[in-house]
């Protein structure tokens, strides 16, 4: 179950933790937009990517997410990176002209490598951003934020509360079901089940011995929960208050404005086709064409 701790909420008290989940969600969307903006020259792509990466890195540090955690969530990307490289090398971009090296009569273009590097950089940034959001925000708070954003849909009778309720119950029961899974796995392992090795037939049996009890208890739990809610007179349409209210603070405004300015900068840079490197250093044109 080790892998499942990735992106799990870590109870620290950093600036990012204290931010309102609504602002964090919005900031995440803005940052994603910024990350996925493209530029005409490759150099600018990497310069802007680098700047964004640095900013994300600083936020990571501020949120007290250990680099170990980041690396372990990037581990799964390895296969993807290799596949990306292969595809880009085998099918080079249309305007590829600069040959990096040749294998026999097959040319490997610089463009292919740069293209892959660009995508990988974006993926890493995307994963870091989501990691920041999930590691600093309690899942329940995140649902409340989602419900808040869905609020306008209430006008067209969209059941926002029910959806938020369903999501929060689902989130609430993930750890419970994980515990349950562990318990059943332990019990079956004590009866000689080997969940890791064995022939396919044995493996199917092993998984069956886990799934059947798990479903049984999940159904039982859902029935109990439904009964408990009904016994307390739960009515989804009733007006209700919350124990924890979302609280917008000055920090949220500050963070939001900062990121908005950043995203605006990125959009303007891309739209106006600015090239800071050219402006500052006046680098020969062949690098820029690249």
């Amino acid at each position: 179950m080790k892998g499942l701790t990735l992106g799990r909420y870590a109870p620290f008290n950093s600036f990012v933790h204290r931010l309102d989940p609504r602002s964090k969600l919005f900031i995440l969307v803005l940052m994603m937009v910024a990350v996925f903006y493209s530029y005409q020259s490759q150099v600018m792509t990497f310069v802007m990517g680098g700047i964004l990466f640095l900013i994300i890195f600083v936020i990571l540090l501020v949120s007290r997410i250990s680099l170990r955690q980041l690396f372990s969530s990037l581990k799964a990307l390895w296969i993807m990176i290799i596949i990306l490289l292969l595809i880009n090398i085998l099918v080079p971009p249309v305007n590829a002209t600069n040959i990096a090296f040749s294998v026999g009569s097959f040319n490997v273009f610089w463009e292919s490598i740069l293209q892959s590097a660009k995508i990988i950089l974006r993926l890493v940034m995307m994963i870091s951003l989501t990691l920041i959001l999930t590691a600093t925000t309690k899942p329940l708070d995140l649902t409340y934020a989602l419900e808040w954003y869905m609020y306008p849909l209430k006008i067209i009778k969209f059941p926002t509360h029910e959806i938020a309720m369903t999501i929060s119950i689902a989130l609430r029961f993930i750890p419970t079901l994980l515990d349950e899974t562990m318990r059943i796995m332990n019990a079956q392992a004590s009866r000689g089940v080997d969940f890791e090795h064995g022939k396919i037939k044995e493996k199917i049996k092993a998984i069956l011995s886990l799934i059947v009890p798990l479903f049984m208890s999940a159904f039982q739990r859902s029935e109990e929960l439904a009964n408990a809610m009904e016994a307390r007179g739960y009515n989804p349409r009733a007006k209700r208050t919350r124990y924890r209210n979302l609280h917008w603070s000055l920090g949220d405004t500050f963070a939001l404005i900062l990121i908005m300015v950043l995203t605006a900068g990125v959009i303007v840079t891309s739209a106006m086709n600015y090239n800071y490197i050219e402006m500052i250093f006046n680098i020969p044109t062949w690098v820029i064409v690249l």
Partner: protein
Amino acid sequence: MPIKYDNVSFTYNDKTPFSYEALSNVNLEIVDGSFTAIVGKTGCGKSTLIQQLNGLLVPTFGEVIVNDYVVSKNRKRRTKKIKELRRLVGIVFQFPEYQLFEETVEKDVAFGPKNFGLNNEEALKNAHEALNLVGLDESFFKRSPFDLSGGERRRVAIAGILALKPNILVLDEPTAGLDPRGAREMMALFKGLHQSGTTVIIVTHDMNIVLEYSDTVIVMEDGEVKEITTPLQLFNQENDRYSLETPLLYKFVKSLSDKGMNLNITMIKDIDSLAKAIAKEKKQ
């Protein structure tokens, strides 16, 4: 073949923000053929302790030795035959009735033995024996475990472990949620197994069970072993150090003593011995 915990510490989620030390520096030995009770408050590490016995959990530091099998992080020391160890040490977890999954009771009980390499017939033979042992007769064999009552399901689950014929039987709260009669029958079963040579380790909150059945008590608190003693010694301590409940029998004996009856408390372990002690006192 004793069980030995050598300086065992265990930390859940080690090296993460969620790390939590459940056991620290546990040293203990459990001799063959003993009936050992592990007591302590909820969350004191009892369940963690027993899961190391068959290698479901591996100590963060130190090692657990069962027979010649070593459960340890050390690659050189640790046993490669974890499956053999799991047959030797049968663990019945808390609320085991939730581990049933087969279509029929006998198939479910035979599942364990089959995993350990017995063929279908042998496994079914073991299963039938185990089911008879827990008091379920032939009429139950072909029924679906999901049609049974909670108590019957618990018996099936326990039979599932007994069918492995373990030398060491570990029970985590086996009587929790059973009616008094069911609990008594269950304990009588374990007593019988103990008398036929099985080492029994039981985790329980019920001090009456501790007094009546066990010969050794391990008291745990906050992940540490506080005391290894006998039930008589434990319950005769004047001060209530571990906030354990006094067994009903002892409460009764103590109030008799307060009223002036001269009973030798060290001789009393169950209702029979209490009756004998009272009779003896009356004669004098």
